[in-house]
C-alpha cells in the first residue's frame, strides 16, 4: 500500500460523521449545564450567608467587648459570672431559630 492509498483509507475511516446534531446528547449537556448553574448559585448563596453571619458574629463580639468594659456592666459580670453564659446561650438560640426559619422559607 502506497502513501496515497493509506491517506485515502485513513481519511475515510477517521472522518467525523455528517448529519444533524444528536438531540439526546444536546439535551443531556443542557441538563448538566442547568444543574451546574443551580449548584453554583447554591454555593454562592451559602458562601454569602456564611460571610454575613461571620461578620455579624464579629460585630456582636466587638459590641460585647465594648459593653463589658463599662464599669457598671463589669461590676455586674463580676458579681454574676453566669450572666455572660445566659446571654450567649440566648443569642445562640435566637440565631438557630432565625436560621431554621430562613431554611423553611427558602
Amino acid at each position, binding site marked *: 500500500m502506497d502513501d496515497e492509498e493509506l491517506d485515502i483509507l485513513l481519511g475515510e475511516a477517521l472522518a467525523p460523521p455528517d448529519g444533524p446534531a444528536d438531540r439526546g*446528547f444536546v439535551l443531556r*449537556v443542557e441538563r448538566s*449545564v442547568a444543574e451546574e448553574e443551580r449548584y453554583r448559585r447554591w454555593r454562592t448563596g451559602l458562601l454569602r450567608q456564611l460571610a454575613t453571619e461571620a461578620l455579624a458574629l464579629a460585630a456582636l463580639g466587638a459590641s460585647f467587648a465594648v459593653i463589658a468594659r463599662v464599669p457598671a456592666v463589669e461590676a455586674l459580670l463580676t458579681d454574676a459570672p453566669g450572666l455572660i453564659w445566659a446571654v450567649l446561650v440566648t443569642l445562640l438560640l435566637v440565631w438557630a431559630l432565625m436560621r431554621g426559619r430562613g431554611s423553611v422559607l427558602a
Partner: protein
Amino acid sequence: MRPERDPDAVLCRRAAAGDKDAFRLLVETHERRLRAFLGQLGGPDLADELAQEAFLKAWQSLRGFREESKFSSWLCAIGWRLFVDHKRRERSEGRKRDAAADLAEREEAASAGARVDLERALARLEPVEKAALVLCDGHGWSHEEAAEILRMPLGTLKGTVRRAKQKCREYLR
C-alpha cells in the same frame, strides 16, 4: 481570522455572558466532531461521557476563553485532556483493561474488508498516535492546530503522525 467573522466567536461571547441558547448552538455545532474524536480513542460510551464533561468544562471556563484559538480546537483540547486524565486515573486505580481484550473488542466492532485491517492497525497504536492521526488525517486539522490541541511541539506532532502511519502501513502490508 477576525473574530467578528467567526460565528463561533459571537456565540462564545454570548455564552460567556450566560446565554444558554448560544451555548446550545455551540454544542449542536461541535458535538459530533468531538464525540467522533473521543470515540476513536476510547469507544462510544467513554466518548459520550467525556464529551459531556468537556462541554460542561467549556461552559464553566468560557469567560476565560481567549479568542486566540478557535472554539473548536479549544474544545477538542479539553476533550483530549479529559481523555488523558481518564487513562491516568484508570491506571492509578489499577483498573487498566487487558490490552488483548480491548483489542478484541475493537476488532469485533470493525466492519468488513480493508476497513477491518485498518481498524486492527489503529487499535495497535498508542492513544497519542491515534489522536494525532484522527485529528490530522480524519478531521482535517492542520499540524499546527493538532499540536496545539494535543499540547505538544509541532516537530513532535509531525513525528508522531509519521510513526503512526508507518505502524499502520507495516500492519497493512
